[in-house]
């Protein structure tokens, strides 16, 4: 029997003028938390953040989302972004809300890629050519993991170097 289970669901929708709306939902034995973020691309700046603690452990917990106003204007990415959020939203509010916040932020970049891939595919572009363009043009992808490292078979096969 599971002693503990946690589910996190993230959905990202693209709105007009480069704004992505991210809806996050966390549900586990102890907490139920909802989060809605707005992120402006290509800057990846947080433009809106609203949260709701629906199930929690202390009477202070529902106040945690008020800290989200301080996250508006932050830019997603960079080496210390997660640390910054853990401190700001986690220590200042709730670490489970911060966990969901980071998960929502991490969903924006794949959503942008998916949007680009959808357009590329409908224009007849092959997946290899799309990945080649992505690795060539997008520094965030390069050396992100072993699949997109300069030593990988994929990168060598596609003939990309940096």
């Amino acid at each position, binding site marked *: 029997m599971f002693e*503990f289970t946690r589910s996190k669901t993230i959905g*990202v929708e693209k709105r007009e003028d480069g704004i992505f709306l991210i809806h996050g939902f966390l549900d586990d034995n*102890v907490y139920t938390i909802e989060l809605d973020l707005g992120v402006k691309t290509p800057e990846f700046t947080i433009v809106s953040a609203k949260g709701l603690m629906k199930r929690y*452990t202390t009477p202070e917990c529902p106040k*945690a989302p008020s800290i989200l106003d301080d996250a508006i204007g932050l830019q997603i990415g960079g080496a210390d972004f997660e640390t910054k959020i853990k401190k700001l939203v*986690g220590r200042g*509010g709730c670490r489970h809300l911060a966990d969901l916040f980071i998960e929502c932020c991490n969903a924006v970049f794949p959503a942008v*890629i998916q949007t680009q891939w959808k357009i590329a595919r409908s224009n007849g572009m092959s997946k290899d050519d799309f990945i080649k363009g992505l690795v060539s043009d997008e520094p965030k992808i390069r050396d992100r993991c072993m*699949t997109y490292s300069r030593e990988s078979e994929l990168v060598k096969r596609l003939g990309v170097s940096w």
Partner: protein
Amino acid sequence: MVQSFVDNRILSYTKNIHAGAENLDNGNTMARVRVDDTFLSAELEMEVKIPDLKIVSIQGRIIRSFTEECENNAEILQRAMGMRVGSGITRLVKETIGGSNGCNVFADMIMEGCNAVIMGFTVDELDKQLAAETDEAFGQVLKDMLENNPRVGSCIAFVEGNELRRRLGV
């Protein structure tokens, strides 16, 4: 008036993460993690020895991914053998399992599993504490939690001088 158009709000990306921890007959804890998103599907299972909290077995696989190469990365997980679920593991997992010589999907899944194991202990404790049947008893539970917990400043509930602390006289 009949609506003549539907605003297109189809999601461009979705992600579902499920993590769970269960106690095994041998006294250890098993964490299971599953991730499904627009680009990939992956699963992970890791056994944590109790009470040392060391990872004693781990396996996983990437079932579906945008690039087929990702599906051959499971051996990376063996680098996590012997790691202790405790202070410093976030950095260790990011550096050892993730990064340019690793797989960030598996790194994140290990962290989800670690969190499930730790939260498993917390749930037991909270369940006992929050079983108070009167307001007075619940107040005492909160007071004990705030007084005996070393996590001052770890979240809004533990901030020094907050309303809850003032009300309970902590």
